């Protein structure tokens, strides 16, 4: 944590977070906290089973293109999303299925987008990397590394322009910390004191390139110091710690100052579903599995007596059922009609917009000369 962040936390950490850290909660509060933990687990398990179902859909050729899963990042996703209000905005990169679901978007529509169907949240135009839903204020998964940072900064600028009480959260991978847009965006946000939380999901790997090999300062949250931006690093395998850190970050943004949060997590599988991750050693793979946040959190809830084996099994079954429902819905949803191909090139209709299909000529061919008119 930077000095700025430390000062910041002392002065304005939310009361709930302070209470958890320093005092023994009273009984009703503890009950609420317990219920919250169970809900975290339900959400983590939903993401786990949804993503596993998506991976199966990919092998069944129901999903095309690239497909990046949140497996191993469930605690990070859950913790971050608890910190946002419905009116806040979220920008993410292309590993965003779990975020979409936790923003409140129907998993059926998320899966339908993966399957390229009309009921997909981007109507089948976006796919895995480009989930978008204005009503739930998910302003996009973005496929270009770092592409979402300037956009998210601009959304925060619009909020500031209108003096609203909303904030923007912008997630990214660890590799993004090295792209120019990262520097330009954080500098602008700090200069103009915009209400935005930048979140680095550090899973230690770009595709196969480690953070150590890509970042001269591998403790990525320290980059905040360059912009006098409060920043913090948190263990992303624990949803409670992530939720508390996210709450602090969001509170800072809502007070009109940007925040950089680094969430250290693990990627359970390859970069995308087709990546066997051969660049990882057997020991590393074993360690990642051992740290699996879903299993770890389940063990914690068992140990704390909040859930028994039967309850854990029930939550798992419910999540599996939900994921299967999403698959069934997506598979039954129609493919887009080819007649809609030109519907979304422009928002304002415009003269001479091309609606030519690949095999069609620009102009109707002139009628062939008939033998009668030839000399």
């Amino acid at each position, binding site marked *: 944590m930077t000095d700025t962040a430390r000062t910041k936390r002392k002065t304005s950490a939310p009361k709930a977070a302070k209470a958890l850290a320093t005092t023994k909660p009273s009984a009703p509060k503890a009950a609420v906290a317990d219920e919250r933990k169970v809900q975290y687990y339900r959400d983590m398990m939903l993401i786990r089973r949804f993503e596993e179902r998506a991976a199966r859909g990919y092998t069944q050729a129901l999903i095309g293109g690239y497909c990046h899963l949140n497996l191993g990042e469930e605690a990070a996703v859950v913790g971050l999303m608890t910190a946002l209000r419905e009116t806040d*905005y979220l920008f993410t990169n292309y590993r965003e299925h779990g975020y979409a679901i936790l923003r409140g978007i129907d998993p059926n529509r998320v899966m339908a987008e993966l399957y390229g169907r009309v009921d*997909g*949240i*981007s*109507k*089948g*135009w*976006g796919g895995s990397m*480009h989930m*978008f*839903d*204005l009503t739930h204020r998910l*302003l*996009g998964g*973005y496929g*270009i590394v770092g*592409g979402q*940072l*300037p*956009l*998210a*900064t*601009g*959304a*925060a*600028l*619009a*909020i500031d*322009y209108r003096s609203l009480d909303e904030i923007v959260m912008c997630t990214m991978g660890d590799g993004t910390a090295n792209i*120019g*847009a990262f520097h*330009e*965006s954080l*500098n*602008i946000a700090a*200069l103009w004191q915009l209400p935005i939380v930048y979140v680095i999901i550090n899973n230690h790997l770009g595709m196969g390139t480690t953070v150590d090999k890509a970042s001269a300062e591998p403790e990525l949250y320290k980059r905040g110091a360059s912009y006098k931006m409060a920043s913090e690093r948190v263990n992303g395998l624990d949803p409670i710690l992530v939720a508390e850190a996210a709450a602090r970050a969001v509170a800072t943004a809502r007070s009109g100052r940007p925040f950089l949060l680094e969430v250290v997590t693990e990627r359970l599988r390859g970069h995308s579903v087709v990546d066997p991750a051969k660049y990882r050693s057997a020991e590393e793979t074993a360690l990642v599995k051992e740290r699996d946040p879903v299993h770890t959190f389940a063990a914690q809830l068992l140990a704390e007596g909040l859930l028994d084996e039967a309850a854990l099994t029930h939550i798992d079954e419910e999540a599996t059922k939900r994921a299967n429902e999403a698959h069934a819905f997506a598979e039954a949803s129609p493919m887009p009609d080819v007649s809609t191909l030109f*519907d*979304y*090139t*422009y*928002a*304002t209709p*415009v*003269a*001479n*917009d*091309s609606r030519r299909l690949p095999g069609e*000529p*620009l*102009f109707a061919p*002139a009628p062939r000369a008939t033998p009668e008119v030839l000399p």
Partner: protein
Amino acid sequence: MSVVTYRQALHDTLRAEMLRDENVFLIGEEIGVFEGSYKITAGLLAEFGERRVRDTPIAEEGFTGAAIGAAMLGLRPVVEIMTINFTLLAIDQIVNHAAKIYGMFGGQAKVPLVIRTPGGGGQQLGATHSQNIELYYAFVPGMKVVAPSTPADAKALLLAAIRDDDPVLFLENLALYNTKGEVPDDDTPAEIGKAAVTREGHDLTLIGYSRMAYVASHVAQELSESDGLDIEVIDLRSLRPLDRETIINSVKKTHAAVVLEDDWLTYGIGAEIAATISDGAFDYLDAPVRRVAMAEVPMPYSKVLESAALPSNDDVRNAIYQTLDAIGRRHHKMGQGHD
């Protein structure tokens, strides 16, 4: 109707649109305190304040992307990028984001954005500051690219661009800023996607945009006076969408075409025009479509070399003469002229 410079027309239109719509704001490098590299935004910071005239760090990708994000939330940013050369630093945000967001998300978010930027050449600014690369943006579905050549169009097209719900690259030109012309008082936006026949004629169709539309009008007028030639001039005004019909209709009438462009010839805008004429008016052509374009070199600094690389009025005249000579039309016309 009043006579103003192209620069003044841009300035006055920006100001009027900011007064009309609170959502319109300006963002770019040196546009506030410095009043703009080419002074288009002179006085606007003093009048509207920092909230609406926002000086940025030198970070084209960052501030152009921020404008796109603000546009997604319903603001109507007008970005100034100092010259079109520097748009290359923002090309990911323009091409991969501004142009894609409406389609990629199934029509859920509009991007009502204007990027104002001048092209140029002829100012001895050397290789990195003299390019005309509007083609890069005109190539991309989802973008609109307009290029006014007169003060009247500077106003009408800027009104259209600001009120349009799509990203519009608004191409200005360093050589045009001080040109003067009549500008109507009313606020009628131009129709994006429409070319204009700025001079009617029957002998040959001369096609250009931005500075080269200005050159086309001048050369056509001169040839009318000197040679009695009756040349039709088309100002493309919009590079995407491209008004192919106006081009084809003209060539069907004149049977010959010369295309003028300030960019490089190979793969350039002129190549698209020539292909369009081939597709739509092949049987009407009496001569191959001729292109007059910049020499294919990185622009040199030295004035002599720079002038040699840029299309001149003489180059345009010669291309017209050679095209008409090839079909035996000029001698006939000149004969008429001397009768």
